[in-house]
Protein backbone atom coordinates (compact mmCIF):
# COMPACT_ATOMS: atom_id res chain seq x y z
CA UNK A 1 0.00 0.00 0.00
CA UNK A 2 2.98 2.30 0.40
CA UNK A 3 3.25 2.88 -3.30
CA UNK A 4 -0.37 3.90 -3.74
CA UNK A 5 -0.05 6.30 -0.85
CA UNK A 6 2.96 7.94 -2.34
CA UNK A 7 1.22 8.27 -5.71
CA UNK A 8 -1.85 9.85 -4.27
CA UNK A 9 -0.65 13.42 -4.09
CA UNK A 10 0.28 13.46 -7.77
CA UNK A 11 -2.99 11.86 -8.80
CA UNK A 12 -4.93 14.25 -6.71
CA UNK A 13 -3.32 17.31 -8.25
CA UNK A 14 -3.60 15.90 -11.79
CA UNK A 15 -7.30 15.32 -11.34
CA UNK A 16 -7.87 18.97 -10.53
CA UNK A 17 -6.73 20.04 -13.98
CA UNK A 18 -9.39 21.25 -16.40
CA UNK A 19 -10.97 18.73 -18.77
CA UNK A 20 -9.88 15.84 -16.60
CA UNK A 21 -12.95 13.61 -17.07
CA UNK A 22 -11.24 11.10 -19.37
CA UNK A 23 -8.20 11.11 -17.15
CA UNK A 24 -10.34 10.57 -14.06
CA UNK A 25 -11.99 7.54 -15.65
CA UNK A 26 -8.64 6.12 -16.68
CA UNK A 27 -7.23 6.51 -13.21
CA UNK A 28 -10.29 5.15 -11.48
CA UNK A 29 -10.08 2.12 -13.72
CA UNK A 30 -6.45 1.67 -12.73
CA UNK A 31 -7.36 2.09 -9.07
CA UNK A 32 -10.06 -0.51 -9.36
CA UNK A 33 -7.60 -3.01 -10.82
CA UNK A 34 -5.10 -2.22 -8.12
CA UNK A 35 -7.67 -2.65 -5.36
CA UNK A 36 -8.82 -5.89 -6.95
CA UNK A 37 -5.34 -7.36 -7.00
CA UNK A 38 -4.46 -6.10 -3.54
CA UNK A 39 -7.66 -6.82 -1.62
CA UNK A 40 -9.27 -9.45 -3.87
CA UNK A 41 -12.55 -7.59 -4.09
CA UNK A 42 -14.16 -5.99 -7.11
CA UNK A 43 -14.95 -2.31 -6.83
CA UNK A 44 -16.40 0.21 -9.24
CA UNK A 45 -16.91 3.93 -9.03
CA UNK A 46 -20.29 5.61 -9.37
CA UNK A 47 -21.63 9.10 -9.65
CA UNK A 48 -24.26 10.02 -7.04
CA UNK A 49 -27.29 11.50 -8.79
CA UNK A 50 -30.30 11.60 -6.50
CA UNK A 51 -31.27 7.94 -6.18
CA UNK A 52 -29.28 6.96 -9.17
CA UNK A 53 -25.76 5.65 -8.93
CA UNK A 54 -24.36 5.99 -12.39
CA UNK A 55 -21.40 3.89 -13.41
CA UNK A 56 -18.22 5.86 -14.00
CA UNK A 57 -15.35 3.38 -14.03
CA UNK A 58 -13.95 0.27 -12.48
CA UNK A 59 -14.42 -3.46 -12.50
CA UNK A 60 -17.66 -4.94 -13.76
CA UNK A 61 -19.61 -7.20 -11.44
CA UNK A 62 -20.92 -9.43 -14.19
CA UNK A 63 -22.48 -12.05 -11.95
CA UNK A 64 -23.90 -11.82 -8.45
CA UNK A 65 -22.00 -13.20 -5.48
CA UNK A 66 -24.88 -13.15 -3.03
CA UNK A 67 -23.43 -10.32 -1.00
CA UNK A 68 -24.90 -6.86 -0.60
CA UNK A 69 -23.63 -4.19 -2.93
CA UNK A 70 -22.73 -1.26 -0.70
CA UNK A 71 -22.07 2.16 -2.15
CA UNK A 72 -19.73 4.26 0.01
CA UNK A 73 -19.37 7.99 -0.68
CA UNK A 74 -15.93 9.38 -1.42
CA UNK A 75 -16.96 12.94 -2.28
CA UNK A 76 -20.34 14.66 -2.53
CA UNK A 77 -20.78 13.27 -6.06
CA UNK A 78 -18.55 10.21 -6.32
CA UNK A 79 -18.75 6.91 -4.49
CA UNK A 80 -17.14 3.49 -4.56
CA UNK A 81 -19.31 0.38 -4.82
CA UNK A 82 -18.45 -3.22 -4.10
CA UNK A 83 -20.05 -6.53 -3.36
CA UNK A 84 -16.97 -7.57 -1.46
CA UNK A 85 -16.84 -5.22 1.50
CA UNK A 86 -17.82 -8.05 3.83
CA UNK A 87 -14.66 -9.89 2.80
CA UNK A 88 -12.53 -7.05 4.00
CA UNK A 89 -11.81 -6.64 7.72
CA UNK A 90 -13.25 -3.37 8.95
CA UNK A 91 -9.87 -1.70 9.66
CA UNK A 92 -8.69 -2.56 6.13
CA UNK A 93 -11.87 -1.22 4.63
CA UNK A 94 -11.55 2.03 6.55
CA UNK A 95 -7.92 2.37 5.57
CA UNK A 96 -8.82 1.85 1.92
CA UNK A 97 -11.61 4.42 2.08
CA UNK A 98 -9.35 6.96 3.78
CA UNK A 99 -6.81 6.44 1.06
CA UNK A 100 -9.35 6.79 -1.72
CA UNK A 101 -10.77 9.95 -0.17
CA UNK A 102 -7.31 11.39 0.01
CA UNK A 103 -6.51 10.46 -3.58
CA UNK A 104 -9.70 11.71 -5.15
CA UNK A 105 -10.24 15.45 -5.15
CA UNK A 106 -13.43 16.71 -3.57
CA UNK A 107 -14.59 18.25 -6.84
CA UNK A 108 -14.07 15.06 -8.89
Amino acid at each position, binding site marked *: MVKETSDSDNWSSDLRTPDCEGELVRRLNALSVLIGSTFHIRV*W*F*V*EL*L*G*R*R*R*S*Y*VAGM*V*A*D*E*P*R*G*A*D*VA*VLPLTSTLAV*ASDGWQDLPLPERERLLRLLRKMIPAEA
Partner: protein
Amino acid sequence: MIKPDEVSKYLKNGRSFVDEEQIGSLLQDKRHTGRSLIREILDKSLSLERLEPQETAALLQVDHEDTWGEIFDAAKQIRNKVYGPRIVTFAPLYCSNLCVNSCLYCAFRKENTSEKRRRLSVEEVRREAEALVSVGHKRLILVYGEHPASDIDYIVRTIQAVYDTRVGKGEIRRVNVNAAPQSIEDLKKLKDVGIGTFQVFQETYHQTTYERVHPRGIKADYLWRLYALHRAQDAGVDDVAIGALFGLYDWKFEVMGLLKHAIDLEERFGGVGPHTISFPRLEPASNTPFCTTSKYRLSDDEFRRVVAVIRVSVPYTGMIVTAREPREIRRQSVELGCTQTDASTRIGIGAYSEQYNEQEADRQQFLLGDTRSLDELVRELAEMGYLTSFCTAGYRCGRTGSHFMTIAKKGNVHLFCIPNAILTLKEFVLDYASPETRRACEELVARRIKHVPENIVPALRQRLEAIERGERDLRF
Protein backbone atom coordinates in the same frame (compact mmCIF):
# COMPACT_ATOMS: atom_id res chain seq x y z
CA MET B 1 -34.79 25.50 -28.77
CA ILE B 2 -33.00 23.63 -31.56
CA LYS B 3 -29.22 23.97 -31.48
CA PRO B 4 -27.89 23.11 -34.95
CA ASP B 5 -24.37 22.40 -33.67
CA GLU B 6 -25.84 19.70 -31.42
CA VAL B 7 -27.02 17.90 -34.54
CA SER B 8 -24.28 18.56 -37.09
CA LYS B 9 -21.57 17.15 -34.85
CA TYR B 10 -23.10 13.70 -35.10
CA LEU B 11 -23.44 13.61 -38.89
CA LYS B 12 -20.92 11.73 -40.99
CA ASN B 13 -20.10 13.66 -44.15
CA GLY B 14 -23.28 15.58 -43.58
CA ARG B 15 -25.40 12.42 -43.52
CA SER B 16 -27.29 10.69 -40.73
CA PHE B 17 -27.05 7.00 -39.84
CA VAL B 18 -30.34 6.39 -41.63
CA ASP B 19 -29.26 5.76 -45.19
CA GLU B 20 -32.63 5.22 -46.83
CA GLU B 21 -31.12 4.08 -50.10
CA GLN B 22 -28.97 1.49 -48.36
CA ILE B 23 -31.90 0.19 -46.30
CA GLY B 24 -34.01 -0.08 -49.44
CA SER B 25 -31.23 -1.96 -51.25
CA LEU B 26 -30.70 -4.35 -48.37
CA LEU B 27 -34.38 -5.18 -48.19
CA GLN B 28 -34.42 -5.67 -51.95
CA ASP B 29 -31.26 -7.78 -52.10
CA LYS B 30 -32.17 -10.04 -49.22
CA ARG B 31 -35.45 -11.26 -50.61
CA HIS B 32 -35.60 -15.04 -50.92
CA THR B 33 -32.62 -15.71 -48.65
CA GLY B 34 -32.16 -19.47 -48.36
CA ARG B 35 -33.32 -21.30 -45.26
CA SER B 36 -29.83 -22.48 -44.38
CA LEU B 37 -28.57 -18.91 -44.33
CA ILE B 38 -31.52 -17.86 -42.17
CA ARG B 39 -30.57 -20.62 -39.75
CA GLU B 40 -26.98 -19.37 -39.66
CA ILE B 41 -28.26 -15.92 -38.79
CA LEU B 42 -30.44 -17.34 -36.03
CA ASP B 43 -27.48 -19.32 -34.68
CA LYS B 44 -25.46 -16.13 -34.49
CA SER B 45 -28.26 -14.49 -32.58
CA LEU B 46 -28.59 -17.46 -30.24
CA SER B 47 -24.94 -16.95 -29.36
CA LEU B 48 -26.08 -13.46 -28.27
CA GLU B 49 -24.39 -11.49 -31.00
CA ARG B 50 -26.14 -8.46 -32.39
CA LEU B 51 -27.07 -8.88 -36.02
CA GLU B 52 -25.82 -6.70 -38.84
CA PRO B 53 -28.35 -4.80 -40.96
CA GLN B 54 -28.07 -7.20 -43.90
CA GLU B 55 -28.87 -10.12 -41.58
CA THR B 56 -31.90 -8.40 -40.10
CA ALA B 57 -33.02 -7.51 -43.64
CA ALA B 58 -32.86 -11.19 -44.57
CA LEU B 59 -35.08 -12.11 -41.62
CA LEU B 60 -37.57 -9.39 -42.44
CA GLN B 61 -37.90 -10.70 -46.00
CA VAL B 62 -38.63 -14.31 -45.06
CA ASP B 63 -41.80 -15.39 -46.83
CA HIS B 64 -42.23 -19.00 -45.67
CA GLU B 65 -44.45 -19.61 -42.67
CA ASP B 66 -42.24 -22.50 -41.49
CA THR B 67 -39.18 -20.29 -41.49
CA TRP B 68 -41.06 -17.64 -39.55
CA GLY B 69 -41.82 -20.40 -37.06
CA GLU B 70 -38.08 -20.90 -36.63
CA ILE B 71 -37.57 -17.17 -36.11
CA PHE B 72 -40.30 -17.15 -33.43
CA ASP B 73 -38.68 -20.13 -31.71
CA ALA B 74 -35.28 -18.45 -31.73
CA ALA B 75 -36.80 -15.26 -30.29
CA LYS B 76 -38.36 -17.23 -27.43
CA GLN B 77 -35.10 -19.04 -26.72
CA ILE B 78 -33.11 -15.82 -26.63
CA ARG B 79 -35.67 -14.18 -24.38
CA ASN B 80 -35.42 -17.01 -21.88
CA LYS B 81 -31.66 -17.35 -22.16
CA VAL B 82 -30.87 -13.67 -21.55
CA TYR B 83 -33.67 -12.49 -19.31
CA GLY B 84 -35.17 -15.62 -17.80
CA PRO B 85 -38.83 -15.85 -16.81
CA ARG B 86 -39.26 -12.33 -15.53
CA ILE B 87 -40.86 -9.15 -16.80
CA VAL B 88 -40.34 -5.67 -15.45
CA THR B 89 -43.46 -3.61 -14.88
CA PHE B 90 -44.10 0.10 -14.65
CA ALA B 91 -46.83 2.69 -15.13
CA PRO B 92 -46.91 5.76 -17.33
CA LEU B 93 -47.76 9.07 -15.67
CA TYR B 94 -48.89 11.73 -18.12
CA CYS B 95 -48.08 15.13 -16.64
CA SER B 96 -49.24 17.42 -19.40
CA ASN B 97 -51.02 17.32 -22.74
CA LEU B 98 -50.19 20.88 -23.74
CA CYS B 99 -48.32 20.64 -27.01
CA VAL B 100 -46.92 22.96 -29.66
CA ASN B 101 -46.63 20.24 -32.28
CA SER B 102 -48.94 19.11 -35.06
CA CYS B 103 -48.35 15.36 -35.32
CA LEU B 104 -51.12 14.09 -37.58
CA TYR B 105 -51.52 10.86 -35.58
CA CYS B 106 -51.70 12.36 -32.10
CA ALA B 107 -54.72 13.58 -30.17
CA PHE B 108 -52.47 16.02 -28.29
CA ARG B 109 -51.61 17.96 -31.49
CA LYS B 110 -52.26 21.63 -31.01
CA GLU B 111 -54.93 21.84 -33.72
CA ASN B 112 -57.12 19.27 -31.94
CA THR B 113 -59.61 21.54 -30.23
CA SER B 114 -61.67 18.63 -28.91
CA GLU B 115 -58.89 17.67 -26.47
CA LYS B 116 -59.21 18.90 -22.88
CA ARG B 117 -55.88 20.57 -22.15
CA ARG B 118 -54.17 20.47 -18.82
CA ARG B 119 -50.78 20.59 -17.16
CA LEU B 120 -50.68 19.01 -13.71
CA SER B 121 -49.26 21.10 -10.89
CA VAL B 122 -46.37 19.60 -8.95
CA GLU B 123 -48.83 18.81 -6.15
CA GLU B 124 -51.15 17.06 -8.61
CA VAL B 125 -48.23 15.01 -9.93
CA ARG B 126 -47.48 14.02 -6.35
CA ARG B 127 -51.09 12.85 -5.92
CA GLU B 128 -50.85 10.80 -9.10
CA ALA B 129 -47.66 9.21 -7.78
CA GLU B 130 -49.35 8.45 -4.46
CA ALA B 131 -52.18 6.68 -6.29
CA LEU B 132 -49.66 4.57 -8.20
CA VAL B 133 -47.57 3.78 -5.13
CA SER B 134 -50.76 2.71 -3.37
CA VAL B 135 -51.34 -0.12 -5.84
CA GLY B 136 -47.73 -1.30 -5.69
CA HIS B 137 -45.82 0.43 -8.47
CA LYS B 138 -42.12 1.10 -7.98
CA ARG B 139 -41.21 2.32 -11.45
CA LEU B 140 -42.84 5.09 -13.45
CA ILE B 141 -42.32 6.72 -16.77
CA LEU B 142 -43.27 10.38 -16.72
CA VAL B 143 -44.64 11.66 -20.02
CA TYR B 144 -44.68 15.30 -21.10
CA GLY B 145 -46.03 17.09 -24.15
CA GLU B 146 -43.70 19.53 -25.86
CA HIS B 147 -44.65 22.98 -24.63
CA PRO B 148 -43.04 25.93 -22.83
CA ALA B 149 -45.24 25.15 -19.81
CA SER B 150 -43.61 21.74 -19.48
CA ASP B 151 -40.03 22.87 -19.91
CA ILE B 152 -37.00 21.26 -18.33
CA ASP B 153 -37.46 23.00 -14.99
CA TYR B 154 -41.04 21.72 -14.72
CA ILE B 155 -39.84 18.25 -15.67
CA VAL B 156 -37.16 18.32 -12.97
CA ARG B 157 -39.59 19.57 -10.30
CA THR B 158 -42.12 16.86 -11.09
CA ILE B 159 -39.47 14.13 -11.04
CA GLN B 160 -38.29 15.32 -7.63
CA ALA B 161 -41.88 15.33 -6.38
CA VAL B 162 -42.33 11.72 -7.48
CA TYR B 163 -39.08 10.61 -5.87
CA ASP B 164 -40.15 12.31 -2.62
CA THR B 165 -43.51 10.53 -2.52
CA ARG B 166 -44.07 7.94 0.22
CA VAL B 167 -47.21 5.97 1.04
CA GLY B 168 -46.73 3.53 3.91
CA LYS B 169 -43.82 1.30 2.93
CA GLY B 170 -44.26 2.23 -0.72
CA GLU B 171 -42.25 4.59 -2.87
CA ILE B 172 -41.26 5.12 -6.46
CA ARG B 173 -37.69 3.95 -6.85
CA ARG B 174 -37.07 4.70 -10.49
CA VAL B 175 -38.42 7.49 -12.66
CA ASN B 176 -37.95 7.18 -16.40
CA VAL B 177 -38.79 10.07 -18.67
CA ASN B 178 -40.48 10.34 -22.06
CA ALA B 179 -40.16 13.92 -23.22
CA ALA B 180 -39.28 16.00 -26.23
CA PRO B 181 -35.68 16.11 -27.42
CA GLN B 182 -33.61 18.43 -25.24
CA SER B 183 -30.35 20.31 -25.57
CA ILE B 184 -27.26 18.91 -23.89
CA GLU B 185 -27.44 21.66 -21.28
CA ASP B 186 -31.00 20.68 -20.33
CA LEU B 187 -30.22 16.98 -20.44
CA LYS B 188 -27.55 17.55 -17.80
CA LYS B 189 -30.36 18.76 -15.51
CA LEU B 190 -32.21 15.51 -16.12
CA LYS B 191 -29.07 13.58 -15.33
CA ASP B 192 -28.53 15.48 -12.09
CA VAL B 193 -32.02 14.73 -10.79
CA GLY B 194 -31.25 11.02 -11.15
CA ILE B 195 -33.57 9.76 -13.85
CA GLY B 196 -33.63 6.14 -14.88
CA THR B 197 -34.00 6.01 -18.65
CA PHE B 198 -34.54 8.89 -21.08
CA GLN B 199 -36.88 7.82 -23.85
CA VAL B 200 -37.47 9.54 -27.17
CA PHE B 201 -39.25 7.78 -30.03
CA GLN B 202 -38.28 8.77 -33.54
CA GLU B 203 -41.87 7.89 -34.61
CA THR B 204 -40.67 7.10 -38.15
CA TYR B 205 -37.13 6.80 -39.49
CA HIS B 206 -38.32 7.57 -43.02
CA GLN B 207 -37.56 11.25 -43.41
CA THR B 208 -40.11 12.10 -46.10
CA THR B 209 -42.85 10.45 -44.09
CA TYR B 210 -41.57 12.10 -40.93
CA GLU B 211 -41.83 15.53 -42.51
CA ARG B 212 -45.31 14.76 -43.85
CA VAL B 213 -46.76 13.66 -40.51
CA HIS B 214 -45.01 16.43 -38.56
CA PRO B 215 -45.85 19.40 -40.76
CA ARG B 216 -45.26 22.16 -38.21
CA GLY B 217 -43.75 22.86 -34.82
CA ILE B 218 -40.37 22.10 -33.35
CA LYS B 219 -40.96 18.39 -33.91
CA ALA B 220 -40.86 18.95 -37.66
CA ASP B 221 -37.05 18.86 -37.43
CA TYR B 222 -36.19 15.23 -38.18
CA LEU B 223 -32.49 15.41 -37.28
CA TRP B 224 -33.01 17.24 -33.97
CA ARG B 225 -35.11 14.29 -32.88
CA LEU B 226 -32.89 11.64 -34.48
CA TYR B 227 -29.92 12.68 -32.35
CA ALA B 228 -31.84 13.36 -29.12
CA LEU B 229 -30.33 10.31 -27.46
CA HIS B 230 -26.82 10.97 -28.73
CA ARG B 231 -27.08 14.29 -26.91
CA ALA B 232 -28.38 12.48 -23.84
CA GLN B 233 -25.32 10.23 -23.85
CA ASP B 234 -23.07 13.25 -24.24
CA ALA B 235 -24.82 14.83 -21.26
CA GLY B 236 -24.05 11.75 -19.17
CA VAL B 237 -27.50 10.13 -19.33
CA ASP B 238 -26.31 6.63 -20.12
CA ASP B 239 -29.64 4.77 -20.14
CA VAL B 240 -31.52 5.76 -23.26
CA ALA B 241 -34.53 4.23 -24.99
CA ILE B 242 -35.47 4.30 -28.65
CA GLY B 243 -38.72 3.55 -30.41
CA ALA B 244 -40.76 3.90 -33.57
CA LEU B 245 -44.49 4.29 -34.01
CA PHE B 246 -45.48 1.46 -36.29
CA GLY B 247 -48.14 2.40 -38.79
CA LEU B 248 -46.64 5.59 -40.16
CA TYR B 249 -44.44 3.87 -42.76
CA ASP B 250 -43.39 0.41 -43.93
CA TRP B 251 -42.76 -1.78 -40.89
CA LYS B 252 -39.67 -3.45 -42.32
CA PHE B 253 -38.05 -0.08 -42.91
CA GLU B 254 -38.79 0.97 -39.33
CA VAL B 255 -37.19 -2.18 -37.90
CA MET B 256 -34.10 -1.42 -39.96
CA GLY B 257 -34.15 2.16 -38.69
CA LEU B 258 -34.31 1.00 -35.09
CA LEU B 259 -31.38 -1.35 -35.66
CA LYS B 260 -29.32 1.37 -37.34
CA HIS B 261 -30.09 3.66 -34.41
CA ALA B 262 -28.97 1.04 -31.90
CA ILE B 263 -25.77 0.38 -33.85
CA ASP B 264 -24.91 4.07 -34.15
CA LEU B 265 -25.33 4.58 -30.40
CA GLU B 266 -23.19 1.52 -29.68
CA GLU B 267 -20.45 2.63 -32.04
CA ARG B 268 -20.26 6.15 -30.69
CA PHE B 269 -20.65 5.55 -26.99
CA GLY B 270 -18.27 2.76 -26.06
CA GLY B 271 -20.62 -0.11 -26.86
CA VAL B 272 -23.56 1.35 -24.95
CA GLY B 273 -26.64 0.98 -27.12
CA PRO B 274 -30.24 1.62 -26.14
CA HIS B 275 -31.45 0.22 -22.84
CA THR B 276 -34.83 -0.56 -24.37
CA ILE B 277 -36.63 -0.51 -27.69
CA SER B 278 -40.35 0.25 -28.08
CA PHE B 279 -42.53 -0.42 -31.09
CA PRO B 280 -46.02 0.94 -30.37
CA ARG B 281 -48.67 0.60 -33.05
CA LEU B 282 -50.93 3.40 -34.17
CA GLU B 283 -54.13 3.27 -32.15
CA PRO B 284 -57.37 5.17 -32.60
CA ALA B 285 -57.32 8.62 -31.04
CA SER B 286 -59.93 11.29 -30.47
CA ASN B 287 -60.66 13.43 -33.53
CA THR B 288 -57.61 11.97 -35.28
CA PRO B 289 -58.69 10.23 -38.49
CA PHE B 290 -55.10 9.59 -39.62
CA CYS B 291 -54.86 6.75 -37.09
CA THR B 292 -57.51 4.71 -38.79
CA THR B 293 -56.73 5.56 -42.40
CA SER B 294 -52.95 5.13 -42.61
CA LYS B 295 -52.16 2.47 -45.21
CA TYR B 296 -49.21 1.29 -43.14
CA ARG B 297 -51.21 0.11 -40.14
CA LEU B 298 -49.79 -3.12 -38.83
CA SER B 299 -51.71 -6.39 -38.61
CA ASP B 300 -51.31 -8.60 -35.56
CA ASP B 301 -49.24 -11.05 -37.62
CA GLU B 302 -46.89 -8.31 -38.73
CA PHE B 303 -46.64 -7.03 -35.16
CA ARG B 304 -45.55 -10.46 -33.92
CA ARG B 305 -42.89 -10.49 -36.64
CA VAL B 306 -41.65 -7.07 -35.54
CA VAL B 307 -41.29 -8.33 -31.97
CA ALA B 308 -39.48 -11.50 -33.01
CA VAL B 309 -37.09 -9.84 -35.44
CA ILE B 310 -36.12 -7.12 -32.96
CA ARG B 311 -35.58 -9.75 -30.26
CA VAL B 312 -33.33 -11.75 -32.55
CA SER B 313 -31.49 -8.71 -33.91
CA VAL B 314 -30.54 -7.18 -30.53
CA PRO B 315 -30.52 -10.11 -28.09
CA TYR B 316 -29.31 -8.03 -25.14
CA THR B 317 -31.60 -5.01 -25.41
CA GLY B 318 -34.78 -4.66 -23.35
CA MET B 319 -38.07 -4.53 -25.25
CA ILE B 320 -41.28 -2.86 -24.15
CA VAL B 321 -44.85 -3.83 -25.02
CA THR B 322 -47.47 -1.51 -23.59
CA ALA B 323 -51.15 -1.41 -22.78
CA ARG B 324 -51.80 -0.02 -26.22
CA GLU B 325 -51.94 -3.66 -27.19
CA PRO B 326 -54.82 -5.95 -26.31
CA ARG B 327 -54.35 -8.69 -23.76
CA GLU B 328 -53.64 -11.58 -26.11
CA ILE B 329 -51.04 -9.67 -28.12
CA ARG B 330 -49.31 -8.63 -24.91
CA ARG B 331 -49.15 -12.24 -23.77
CA GLN B 332 -47.65 -13.32 -27.07
CA SER B 333 -45.21 -10.40 -27.09
CA VAL B 334 -43.91 -11.32 -23.64
CA GLU B 335 -43.22 -14.86 -24.80
CA LEU B 336 -41.57 -13.65 -28.01
CA GLY B 337 -39.15 -11.30 -26.37
CA CYS B 338 -40.62 -8.35 -24.51
CA THR B 339 -39.03 -7.71 -21.15
CA GLN B 340 -41.05 -4.77 -19.84
CA THR B 341 -44.72 -3.90 -19.78
CA ASP B 342 -47.00 -1.42 -18.07
CA ALA B 343 -49.98 -2.17 -15.87
CA SER B 344 -53.02 -0.42 -14.39
CA THR B 345 -52.39 2.09 -17.11
CA ARG B 346 -54.31 5.33 -17.45
CA ILE B 347 -53.11 7.94 -19.88
CA GLY B 348 -55.56 10.74 -19.18
CA ILE B 349 -54.09 13.73 -17.41
CA GLY B 350 -54.84 13.29 -13.70
CA ALA B 351 -56.54 9.96 -14.30
CA TYR B 352 -54.98 7.97 -11.46
CA SER B 353 -55.82 10.24 -8.54
CA GLU B 354 -59.13 11.50 -9.91
CA GLN B 355 -60.26 7.98 -10.79
CA TYR B 356 -62.37 9.01 -13.72
CA ASN B 357 -63.71 6.48 -16.20
CA GLU B 358 -61.24 4.00 -17.50
CA GLN B 359 -60.90 5.73 -20.83
CA GLU B 360 -61.88 9.24 -21.83
CA ALA B 361 -60.83 9.87 -25.38
CA ASP B 362 -60.79 13.64 -25.08
CA ARG B 363 -58.20 13.53 -22.31
CA GLN B 364 -55.96 10.86 -23.84
CA GLN B 365 -53.31 10.69 -26.52
CA PHE B 366 -54.85 7.49 -27.91
CA LEU B 367 -57.11 4.64 -26.77
CA LEU B 368 -55.68 1.75 -24.75
CA GLY B 369 -56.08 -1.90 -25.61
CA ASP B 370 -55.73 -3.23 -22.06
CA THR B 371 -56.73 -1.46 -18.85
CA ARG B 372 -56.37 -4.28 -16.35
CA SER B 373 -55.09 -3.58 -12.86
CA LEU B 374 -51.55 -4.27 -11.73
CA ASP B 375 -52.84 -7.07 -9.51
CA GLU B 376 -54.59 -8.78 -12.43
CA LEU B 377 -51.55 -8.49 -14.66
CA VAL B 378 -49.18 -9.83 -12.00
CA ARG B 379 -51.52 -12.80 -11.50
CA GLU B 380 -51.79 -13.53 -15.20
CA LEU B 381 -48.03 -13.34 -15.66
CA ALA B 382 -47.53 -15.64 -12.67
CA GLU B 383 -49.94 -18.13 -14.21
CA MET B 384 -47.90 -17.93 -17.41
CA GLY B 385 -44.75 -18.65 -15.39
CA TYR B 386 -43.32 -15.13 -15.38
CA LEU B 387 -42.11 -13.29 -12.30
CA THR B 388 -43.23 -9.69 -12.33
CA SER B 389 -40.24 -7.62 -11.36
CA PHE B 390 -40.33 -4.24 -9.64
CA CYS B 391 -36.56 -4.30 -9.44
CA THR B 392 -34.62 -1.05 -9.57
CA ALA B 393 -31.37 -2.44 -8.23
CA GLY B 394 -29.17 -1.88 -11.26
CA TYR B 395 -29.30 1.85 -11.39
CA ARG B 396 -28.95 2.22 -7.64
CA CYS B 397 -25.68 0.35 -7.39
CA GLY B 398 -24.01 1.55 -10.54
CA ARG B 399 -24.92 -1.22 -12.95
CA THR B 400 -25.69 1.33 -15.65
CA GLY B 401 -24.28 2.26 -19.04
CA SER B 402 -21.26 0.20 -20.04
CA HIS B 403 -21.41 -1.77 -16.77
CA PHE B 404 -24.94 -2.95 -17.59
CA MET B 405 -24.12 -3.54 -21.26
CA THR B 406 -21.21 -5.81 -20.33
CA ILE B 407 -23.56 -7.90 -18.20
CA ALA B 408 -26.24 -7.90 -20.87
CA LYS B 409 -23.90 -8.86 -23.71
CA LYS B 410 -22.66 -11.81 -21.68
CA GLY B 411 -26.26 -12.95 -21.32
CA ASN B 412 -26.02 -12.57 -17.54
CA VAL B 413 -28.92 -10.19 -16.93
CA HIS B 414 -31.06 -12.99 -15.55
CA LEU B 415 -28.46 -13.84 -12.91
CA PHE B 416 -29.22 -10.53 -11.20
CA CYS B 417 -32.77 -10.04 -12.35
CA ILE B 418 -34.34 -13.30 -11.26
CA PRO B 419 -33.31 -12.98 -7.59
CA ASN B 420 -34.16 -9.27 -7.60
CA ALA B 421 -37.49 -10.02 -9.25
CA ILE B 422 -38.25 -12.57 -6.52
CA LEU B 423 -37.42 -10.05 -3.79
CA THR B 424 -39.52 -7.26 -5.23
CA LEU B 425 -42.40 -9.58 -6.05
CA LYS B 426 -42.32 -10.72 -2.43
CA GLU B 427 -42.76 -7.09 -1.35
CA PHE B 428 -45.69 -6.71 -3.74
CA VAL B 429 -47.32 -9.89 -2.51
CA LEU B 430 -47.11 -8.84 1.12
CA ASP B 431 -48.10 -5.20 0.66
CA TYR B 432 -50.56 -5.06 -2.22
CA ALA B 433 -51.64 -8.39 -3.73
CA SER B 434 -55.10 -9.91 -3.62
CA PRO B 435 -55.32 -13.40 -2.07
CA GLU B 436 -55.59 -15.03 -5.54
CA THR B 437 -52.55 -13.17 -6.82
CA ARG B 438 -50.62 -13.91 -3.66
CA ARG B 439 -51.30 -17.62 -4.09
CA ALA B 440 -50.26 -17.64 -7.74
CA CYS B 441 -47.06 -15.70 -7.00
CA GLU B 442 -46.05 -17.82 -4.03
CA GLU B 443 -46.42 -21.00 -6.08
CA LEU B 444 -44.37 -19.47 -8.85
CA VAL B 445 -41.60 -18.20 -6.54
CA ALA B 446 -41.26 -21.65 -4.99
CA ARG B 447 -40.66 -23.03 -8.50
CA ARG B 448 -38.40 -20.23 -9.68
CA ILE B 449 -36.01 -20.26 -6.74
CA LYS B 450 -34.69 -23.47 -8.25
CA HIS B 451 -33.45 -21.40 -11.21
CA VAL B 452 -31.42 -19.05 -9.03
CA PRO B 453 -27.66 -19.75 -8.98
CA GLU B 454 -26.89 -22.04 -6.06
CA ASN B 455 -24.31 -19.73 -4.51
CA ILE B 456 -26.84 -17.01 -3.87
CA VAL B 457 -29.86 -19.07 -2.76
CA PRO B 458 -28.96 -18.86 0.96
CA ALA B 459 -28.64 -15.05 0.73
CA LEU B 460 -31.88 -14.89 -1.24
CA ARG B 461 -33.71 -16.88 1.41
CA GLN B 462 -32.30 -14.64 4.15
CA ARG B 463 -33.54 -11.56 2.34
CA LEU B 464 -36.97 -13.09 1.78
CA GLU B 465 -37.23 -13.74 5.51
CA ALA B 466 -36.17 -10.18 6.22
CA ILE B 467 -38.91 -8.91 3.91
CA GLU B 468 -41.40 -11.09 5.81
CA ARG B 469 -40.22 -9.33 8.98
CA GLY B 470 -40.96 -5.95 7.41
CA GLU B 471 -37.69 -4.90 5.79
CA ARG B 472 -37.98 -3.44 2.30
CA ASP B 473 -35.84 -2.57 -0.67
CA LEU B 474 -33.38 -5.45 -0.37
CA ARG B 475 -31.45 -6.38 -3.47
CA PHE B 476 -28.46 -8.00 -5.11
